[in-house]
């Protein structure tokens, strides 16, 4: 049942062996530190104590490698809208006078690589709990996803084919999200060789809460009862966090304890019940059981309140009766939450859970010493100082920043631009993601007012940001988008990450929203390799640089390291979730072009920036000039654009990103089912392919209402070029007298719609 582990008598080699055999994932120096602690206590640890340390000190739980970097760059951006940021499972930000919105973003990479369906589903389950435990009603889900190319002909042994992973992950998110009735409204899908061995599955959730109902993840005072609610505890999901903090290899499949299927139908009433007791003011605190299970939640809640805790482990309702104490303590069974309840409210809380047919059990209480004790069968089996348990070592590991020479090789100008545009449209990274979007119920709750697919019925194009109207009594809206371009970050982690922020802001501004907060999920390789940690460093630095200049805070996030296999690491993948505010959703606009005769303008400067661009990838040429970001220009153009949208001058708007101006025009036409006549002559003096396909940041194309064009020109501050008009059945792009592209919109649409369906069926 319970073992004492001989640590005191162990030498270095034995220490390592203990860590490995018990799957603790602790290094030698960490094991030594633990040994020293117990030497002082003059006793050996029990297996449950040791397991608990393995959980608490994992990278996943304590960010021992990344904290220093995050603190330096990403945390602590002050903004008036901040309510509770970085401190809790999710960030809490002001929405209006009485309401806040809550943001959480996490990775579920390792479990999804092993069991895509269950891994992604439980990812959604976990992120929902992070939002619910702040007392908030979830209103939207977001899912940035990254896989190997769908046409990969060969994958290494022990690795699943990208098509299998893509299909399983999307099914998992679909089945869980749809079943709990929270719309999945935004996300991204990116394919790159670098994700063959390690797919990246990030999931985000946004919720809304009355400010007075915000609840903290802590106990309030000694005597507060710890009430475990939701599903039973089983052997499923043991060692999820230590698993997430290691590289995957061929034998990872055997770690199946860490993978679960998830049960949305237990979750749905659990959400209702938790929100009901919270809204009735019956709770002192609430926190979800995620990584590390009970072992993490009890300690963190108690310590956050400034106290300790005592737990009677035999009270925990079990799925498998023969579980031993340490298994109960670290199990990551899904669909569970921990409440801190004042004894006087216990009866009412229990009654509400009973009404919802959800289990609730008192398993312990907060105590006035900073000590954590566990009893099992009447015997004390665990006693540790909270400080030691939760103060994991912090590392300043060595890192190395690679030098990047910003240079493009010379290359010949191709002759047929029409063909290139068609090929770009059919590249899986650009092609329509309808296959994914329509499998998610993105309209449940009936508050998705700007949808992810936009345009003439049956002829949709991609939107830039989705807009939710979360409150019945107000027209105020939340705009939501997620982005990063791994082709950039792979070449240049700094400018690639800066570009991600630029793109997120562009997307939000495109619908008329003011960017308001960010969450980041930093997916990187093995931090023990200096060049990997260097990538993390550069990326975090860039995120902080742009966000600070814009005065937009990071309010929550997550770090996922060790996304690395023996044959390589994923590209640096800082996926960024951006949230914007619109004061009146009825003013929002969409991407699809609206009306014959309306003038078209390009906002922003086009430079020769081809690093990571779809165009050069297509030509098979590698380049290092990843687009740079000028935060000042971004802010200025954005403000100007948002105010023009607010004034009702703009009929449609799309930001210029992958594939450049040519692609941007094509997407606006596809949704509007109408052509455009463009002349790139006035953009500047450069080769025409630079104009068409460069991916310089901070640019948009807007269709302005015909009779308001003058006013728009007068009002708009910053780089502005009138490049053409809406009309005709073709996209016709000229440069002065030379015709570059002339293709029917229908042909563009067909080429753009098909690819993912062709691969996935």
């Amino acid at each position, binding site marked *: 049942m319970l073992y004492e582990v001989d640590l005191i008598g162990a030498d270095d080699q034995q220490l390592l062996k203990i860590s490995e055999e018990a799957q603790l994932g602790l290094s030698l120096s960490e094991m030594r530190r633990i040994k020293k602690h117990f030497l002082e206590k003059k006793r050996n640890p029990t297996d449950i104590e040791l397991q608990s340390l393995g959980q608490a000190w994992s990278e996943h739980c304590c960010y021992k490698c990344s904290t220093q970097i995050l603190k330096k760059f990403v945390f602590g951006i002050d903004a008036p809208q901040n309510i509770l940021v970085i401190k809790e499972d999710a960030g809490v930000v002001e929405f209006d006078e009485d309401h806040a919105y809550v943001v959480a973003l996490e990775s579920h990479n390792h479990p999804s690589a092993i069991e895509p369906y269950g891994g992604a589903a439980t990812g959604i389950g976990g992120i929902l709990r992070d939002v619910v435990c702040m007392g908030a009603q979830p209103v939207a889900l977001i899912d940035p996803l990254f896989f190997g190319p769908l046409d990969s002909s060969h994958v290494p042994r022990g690795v699943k084919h990208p098509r299998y992973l893509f299909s399983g992950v999307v099914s998992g998110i679909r089945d869980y999200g749809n079943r709990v009735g929270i719309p999945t409204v935004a996300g991204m899908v990116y394919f790159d060789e670098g994700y063959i061995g390690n797919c990246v599955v990030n999931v985000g959730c946004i919720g809304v809460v009355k400010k007075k109902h915000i609840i903290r993840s802590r106990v309030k005072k000694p005597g507060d009862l710890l009430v475990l609610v939701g599903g039973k505890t089983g052997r*499923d999901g043991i060692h999820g966090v230590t698993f997430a903090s290691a590289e995957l290899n061929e034998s990872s499949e055997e770690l*199946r304890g860490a993978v679960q299927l998830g*049960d949305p139908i237990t979750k749905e009433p659990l959400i209702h019940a938790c929100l009901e007791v919270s809204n009735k003011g019956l709770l002192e605190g609430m926190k979800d059981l995620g990584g590390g299970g009970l072992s993490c939640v009890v300690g963190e809640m108690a310590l956050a309140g400034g106290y300790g805790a005592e737990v009677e482990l035999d009270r925990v309702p079990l799925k498998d009766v023969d579980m031993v104490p340490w298994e109960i303590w670290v199990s990551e069974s899904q669909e569970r939450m921990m409440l801190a309840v004042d004894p006087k409210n216990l009866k009412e809380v229990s009654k509400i859970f009973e009404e919802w047919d959800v289990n609730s059990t008192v398993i312990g209480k907060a105590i006035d010493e900073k000590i954590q004790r566990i009893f099992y069968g009447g015997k004390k089996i665990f006693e540790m100082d909270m400080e030691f348990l939760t103060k994991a070592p912090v590392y300043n590991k060595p890192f190395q920043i690679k030098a990047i020479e910003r240079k493009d090789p010379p290359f010949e100008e191709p002759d047929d631009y029409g063909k290139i545009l068609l090929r770009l449209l059919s590249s899986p990274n650009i092609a329509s993601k309808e296959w994914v979007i329509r499998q998610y119920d993105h309209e449940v709750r009936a508050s998705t007012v700007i949808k992810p697919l936009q345009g003439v019925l049956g002829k949709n194009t991609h939107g830039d940001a989705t807009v939710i109207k979360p409150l019945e009594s107000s027209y105020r809206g939340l705009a939501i988008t997620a982005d990063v371009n791994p082709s950039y970050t792979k070449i240049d982690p700094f400018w690639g990450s800066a570009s991600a922020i630029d793109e997120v802001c562009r997307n939000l501004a495109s619908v008329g929203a003011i960017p308001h907060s960010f969450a980041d999920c930093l997916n990187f390789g093995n931090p023990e390799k200096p060049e990997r940690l260097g990538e993390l460093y550069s990326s975090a630095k860039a995120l902080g640089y742009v966000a600070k200049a814009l005065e937009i805070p990071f309010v929550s996030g997550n770090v996922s390291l060790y996304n690395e296999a023996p044959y390589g690491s994923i590209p640096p993948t800082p996926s960024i979730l951006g949230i914007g505010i619109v004061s009146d959703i009825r003013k929002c606009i969409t991407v699809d072009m609206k009306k014959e005769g309306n003038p078209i303008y390009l906002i922003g400067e086009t430079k020769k920036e081809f690093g990571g661009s779809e165009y050069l990838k297509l030509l098979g040429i590698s380049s290092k000039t990843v687009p740079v970001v000028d935060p000042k220009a971004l802010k200025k153009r954005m403000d100007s654009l948002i105010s023009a949208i607010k004034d009702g001058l703009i009929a449609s708007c799309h930001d210029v990103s992958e594939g450049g101006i040519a692609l941007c025009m094509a997407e606006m036409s596809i949704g509007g089912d109408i052509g455009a006549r463009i002349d790139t002559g006035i953009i500047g003096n450069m080769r025409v392919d630079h104009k068409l396909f460069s991916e310089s940041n901070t640019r948009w194309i807007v269709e302005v209402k015909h009779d308001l064009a003058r006013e728009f020109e007068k009002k708009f501050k910053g780089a502005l070029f009138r490049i053409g008009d809406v009309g005709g059945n073709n996209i016709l792009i000229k440069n002065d007298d030379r015709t570059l592209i002339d293709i029917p919109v229908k042909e563009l649409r067909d080429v753009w719609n098909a690819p993912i369906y062709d691969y996935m069926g």
Partner: protein
Amino acid sequence: MEADVTIILKKGVADPEGSNVKKALNLLGFDEVRKVQTMKTFRIDLATEDRGKAKKDIDEMCKKLLANPVIQTYRVEIR
């Protein structure tokens, strides 16, 4: 040639579908139902009469698409 491939959840992996069906049957008054497990069968019609090859191919199909060895096992029955 036809083969039935049955996919079964491994022991210890929670089966939310099964437990929800059990609950429903109990609520309908079938109190004697103690447990429900769900399984999925694919009946595959193959354009070959070579049993050996069929068996090998089906094994391959299970590994690549139909089953995930992490949580599932499978049983093949050539008819």
